[in-house]
């Protein structure tokens, strides 16, 4: 896939691209407002970064502690090496209990594993109950943002989707009306469900519990009626102790949407009486990233989406232009880790502005890792030939000062005299929307040298 081409497509509808950019910038500014209300914001970030570094450095220990504690509480802990194994475990749990209807709250891990199509192929009805996820599910699209899945949809789009699938009034766009229709339909699904699946925002090793955060209450509704609760969890979601949650719950919602906390922050310890809780721990490449000194810190990610909201490129190209379950800056580190060939263009979908690193609640050095990925891709031979040759050529010129000076002099002599059609054509990407700089007669060093001469006289 090529991010630049997909981004160009996205921008073709300029008013829509501007609307997308402004909508996400607004979420960034809400984050700023919420963060500024806590004088200890930067201290919290530092604590969170250290807690995650400590957890990752002792991951095996904490995983075993979590498994032991969770099991004591009556949960069943499963381990899945990869996406396929995760999907099979979930399917087996459903099939063995005769469950045909599943309700799901938001889980980017299950997107990563492509769980929905797998379950549907095997005769399970899957309903994504997060409203944004349900909208894109009905539209037959993947989510475009990890926290705001339908951020790319206008209310007119939602009105059309709901008219087609729910029978709401044609042309209706009022969010209250549309949300009310969704409420009615989804509550039916909660009541009819045989099983509920959630993701896991945080898991606590010390207590064996899992934490799920929502605004809609859909996770709680989804698992409190059916007798089976399946929780899918990446192994990096662990925290050592309950008190660590104090730090993370103060950072998460403020970073994600500018709220002090989500409406529901649910801590599940074992199943409720008469029901079952199954927790599926998933590796799917995470233990490989663990071994990388450069990219290990990307495992600290708490999936808040702040990097996406602040990224000037993401805002102007949309989540779908990344073609991966987690898009944006952090996704541009994670996706190449899994498949460098397919995602080679992602680390360059970035101007290295560094805003992502400064908003990240766990202080992942996102833009530095993106830069490191560019080097890795070069080493893997995945850099486009034109870039490689261009840089080899430039490096040669820059190693030879007199050649460099002559090249500059030649350019300054010739370029101003070239006719426009030679300078501005389809070979000149710079010139599509920009004028080339004016080429001066003298370079700085020539002027400086001339001045030095004058002064010596």
């Amino acid at each position, binding site marked *: 896939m090529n991010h630049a081409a997909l981004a160009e497509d996205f921008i073709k509808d300029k008013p829509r691209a501007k609307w997308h950019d402004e909508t996400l910038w607004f979420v960034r500014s809400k984050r700023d407002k919420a963060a500024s209300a806590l004088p200890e914001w930067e201290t919290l970030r530092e604590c969170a970064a250290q807690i995650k570094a400590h957890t990752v450095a002792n991951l095996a220990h904490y995983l075993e502690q979590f498994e032991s504690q969770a099991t004591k509480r009556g949960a069943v802990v499963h381990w899945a090496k990869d996406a396929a194994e995760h999907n099979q475990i979930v399917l087996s749990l459903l099939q063995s209990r005769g469950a045909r209807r599943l309700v799901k709250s938001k889980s980017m891990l299950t997107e990563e594993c492509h769980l929905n199509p797998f379950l549907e192929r095997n005769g399970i009805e899957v309903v994504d109950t997060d409203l944004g996820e349900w909208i894109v599910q009905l539209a037959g699209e993947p989510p475009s943002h990890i926290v705001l899945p339908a951020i790319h949809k206008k209310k007119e789009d*939602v009105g059309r989707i709901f008219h087609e699938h729910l029978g709401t009034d044609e042309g209706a766009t009022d969010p209250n009306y549309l949300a009310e229709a969704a409420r009615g339909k989804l509550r039916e699904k909660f009541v009819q469900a045989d099983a509920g699946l959630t993701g896991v925002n945080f898991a606590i090793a010390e207590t064996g519990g899992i934490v799920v955060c929502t*605004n809609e209450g859909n996770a709680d509704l989804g698992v409190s009626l059916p007798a089976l609760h399946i929780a899918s969890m990446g192994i990096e979601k662990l925290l050592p102790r309950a008190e660590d949650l104090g730090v993370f719950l103060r950072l998460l919602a403020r970073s994600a949407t500018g709220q002090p906390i989500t409406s529901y922050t649910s801590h599940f*310890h074992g199943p409720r009486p008469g029901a079952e809780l199954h927790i599926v721990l998933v590796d799917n490449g995470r233990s490989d990233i663990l071994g990388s000194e450069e990219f290990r810190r990307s495992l600290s990610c708490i999936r808040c989406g702040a990097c996406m909201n602040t990224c000037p490129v993401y805002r102007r190209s949309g989540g779908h232009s990344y073609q991966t379950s987690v898009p944006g800056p952090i996704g541009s580190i994670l996706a190449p880790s899994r498949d460098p060939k397919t995602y080679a263009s992602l680390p360059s979908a970035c101007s290295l502005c560094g805003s992502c690193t400064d908003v990240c609640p766990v202080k992942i050095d996102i833009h530095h890792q993106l830069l490191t990925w560019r080097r890795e891709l070069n080493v893997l031979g995945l850099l486009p030939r034109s870039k490689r040759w261009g840089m080899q050529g430039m490096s040669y010129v820059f190693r030879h000062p007199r050649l460099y000076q002559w090249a500059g002099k030649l350019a300054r002599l010739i370029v101003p005299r070239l006719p426009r059609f030679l300078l501005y054509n389809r070979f000149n990407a710079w010139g599509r929307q920009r004028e080339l700089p004016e080429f001066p007669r003298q370079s700085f060093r020539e002027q400086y040298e001339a001045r030095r001469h004058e002064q010596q006289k």
Partner: protein
Amino acid sequence: MSSRNSILKSIRAQLLPAAERPDLNRDWLRYPDPWAQFQTQLAGVGGQAVRVANMEEVTASLALRPEFVAAKEIVSTVPGIAGNIDLESVQDPHALETTEWAILPAQFAVAENGAVWVTDQCVKHRVIYFLTQHLVLVLPAGEIVHNMHEAYARVTLGESSLGLFMSGPSKTADIEQSLVIGAHGPRSLTVFCVGD
């Protein structure tokens, strides 16, 4: 080798630099008037916090609401507030789908973010917290902490199969970022703080 063992083996094979846990014993933000902070925060997320002297005042306050007065199915597990559905005698939680009002206990409030801590320890069917159309939580007066660090010092995670921080009614902004109160869960949340 089981997936469990191969994952753990794979993790243990990596040489990782040691990293210490940070000390979380710090002077975290506290408020001069925690109740006022709580009220403001809860109002900001579409909920309501009301201070009352006793249970009679709770009943009186609820009686002023037309939707409460007209309600046909009310669950209450709070002594002193009458409901007409006995939660203990409900066998199947699915039957609670038509509950209009639920008056339930909460343990303490968090000033920082307008949240209250509730657990499923004293309710037979925890889904009632989410399935009801309107939710009323009752807190003993003075049960309030300043921030989330104090909150986690106060709870004992694992005591109940579900413990949650609830801040406001359910909501969503998934339709073009327009805030809609009352997504899938309760449409309203009122927190009564009872006593001196």
